[in-house]
């Protein structure tokens, strides 16, 4: 029996449009993946299947590229995506402890999303706010001069935003 993949019509149409904008050229796979992730927020299996069929390449190859680059994710981001800066300035000022505290408080690892879909956790390199180091972003909001002790409080404050 063939594998059945389900996808929403507008998502399928959008992904097909992205592929077409790159002339369905398999050499443009990474650009197609970037734009698809920008649109969907992540790259679920069904999106990769649609891309594979439109670019005429094996799905395994698409998955190979998605799993190779840490920028690509198969997990949807949370309502409040947390990004802890691990750039040099933040790192030397204790960003690792801040990140560890986020892991503990949220009960998830880097690259994961909590079961309620509220928070996801990522680490990134330098957001250009070194004067505020260590820095974490929650959504668009920048939290600077963080210490591990602050983490619990800002998570609760964010939750209250609803």
């Amino acid at each position, binding site marked *: 029996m063939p*594998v059945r993949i389900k996808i929403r019509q507008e998502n399928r149409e959008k992904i097909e449009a992205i592929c077409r904008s790159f002339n369905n050229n398999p050499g443009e796979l990474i650009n197609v993946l970037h734009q698809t992730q920008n649109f969907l927020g992540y790259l679920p299996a069904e999106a990769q299947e649609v891309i594979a*069929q439109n670019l005429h390449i*094996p*799905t395994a190859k698409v998955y*190979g590229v998605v799993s190779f680059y840490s920028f690509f994710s198969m997990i949807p981001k949370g309502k409040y995506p947390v990004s802890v800066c691990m750039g040099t300035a933040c790192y030397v000022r204790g960003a690792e402890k801040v990140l560890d505290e986020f892991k503990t408080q949220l009960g998830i690892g880097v690259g994961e999303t909590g079961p309620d879909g509220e928070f996801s956790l990522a680490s990134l390199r330098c957001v250009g706010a070194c004067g505020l180091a260590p820095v974490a972003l929650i959504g668009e909001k920048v939290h600077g001069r963080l210490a591990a002790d602050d983490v619990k409080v800002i998570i609760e404050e964010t939750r209250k935003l609803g």
Partner: protein
Amino acid sequence: MDQVKLIIDNKEVAVPNGTTILKAAQQMGINIPTLCHFELKGMGVHNKPGGCRICVVEVEGRRNLAPACVTEVTEGMVVRTNSIRAINARRTVLELLLSDHPADCLKCSKSGNCELQNLAIRFGIREIPFEGEQSTYQLEVSPSIIRDMNKCIMCRRCETICNDFQTVGALSAIERGFPAVVSTAFNQTLAQSPCTFCGQCVAVCPVGALTEVDHTAKVIRSIADEKKTVVVQVAPAVRVALGEEFGMTPGSIVTGQLTAALKALGFDYVFDTDWSADLTIMEEGTELLGRLTKYLNGDKDVKLPILTSCCPAWVNFFEYQFPALKDIPSTAKSPQQMFGAIAKTYFADKIGVKREDMIVVSVMPCLAKKYECGRDEFAVNGNPDVDYSITTRELAHLIKQANIDFASLEEASFDSPLGESTGAGVIFGTTGGVIEAACRTAYEVFTGKTLDKVDFEELRGLEGIRAATIDMNGTKINIGIAHGLSNARKLLEQVERGESQFHAIEVMACPGGCIDGGGQPLHHGNSDIIKARWEAIYKTDRSMPIRKSHENPSIQTLYKEFLGNPCGHKSHELLHTHYFDKKPVIEIDLDKK
């Protein structure tokens, strides 16, 4: 071509520009060890990622060591393949590979035939100084292939053959760094993936990461069960390769010892798939002539070209990759399945054995045959026409376990009636053979004349795609032949675009056809072995007293006593099948918000 002069291990050598250090050294008899590098000369199979670094050599004036398999020679180059630096580096590379490899060689099915094990022996490895993380992948057992990725060394040969030679695309390297491994999309099972079970990944895997599902224990149990009548059939390509497992020269024809060994193992009836290959020609040949006659009479709707359907990996391929063309292939079952269908009806009745008390075993050069015999449509009330399919390699293990001295066996012959066959049946074992067998019969049936010469040399060869025109008394039949699914894909794309000039196309998935099937003795990249098997197939054909399928007396009797006419009612019931659309379906999800 320009010659380049260089020095390897203090000896001067001149080789054509573009030669790698590895090949230049090989010409001088210097055997640099390799692991990921794999080439099947003349077959278009070449894996050269330069990734494992087992072949590193020292090049004067170069800071780092050079991988010999991908470094081309330059004028005046001075190479040391055995400097202490190169030897130490290679040893470290091997030790690192072994540090993440389960040291369970004693119970690994690749033991004794493993390229990693051979290197460990060659390098005299006595301890592994590195301790570290070990891969912990789950074992996957599919209908044909076992994937034990803990043993994978990331040579990527399987990925190369699956994508480049077969264009199946079931496998790809995924992840990066330590978790990097060869896998399917989203780690789905092989059965969910586009895998055709051709088994070429198994044939090229240097270690025990990809192996066949072993049915020998089930076969032994069936033989030991006194209530069961156990019938065995042997595919054509097995008889020209099995000898290699017992140290014989490649190309040795061991039909006599093979049948003697099967009898010594205790099979009740030793029959021949060549017999059902002849039967296949009767059905497929009739179908071909039927479609051709309609076409010549001006029927525009007739489906041409007709495609052969003997190769189960090829069937899996078009079901997944070209489902829109699934009405074009011949509906004739493969010889393995035709044999099972007749054994469990006609023959079972003849000897007064009930279907459920008969076990049909097939010995095949193939892994896809294991999948094929498990297809739902090839069973009656859950009882399969062919119970177990074992490979040439598995049969060799069985013979060795049973203390049979294969080489000194007195030759025996196949039993009657499903053991009588012709030269046409045996050439099914190689590319071009099925269509040549069909031409021998189709010509005589179509023209009513006897062939002066049964050899259709124009259909033979090992080129990936071949074309020939057969003149049937003024009617010209265009024939296409492809082996390797990448070549088949090219012919199918022509068909899809409506540009195909062929009336009939034969496809076999493996390089050279069944002679290099995924279940054959491992050749470790030596294509001379495949060539030798190929020659042995035609030699066997020439030695047969009857060389045309329709002249097989036991096939004639079968039609008289049981089937009636080729492609008749009973034939359709027992000997024909239909195909399925297996391409993933993308459905619109109305519920998902």
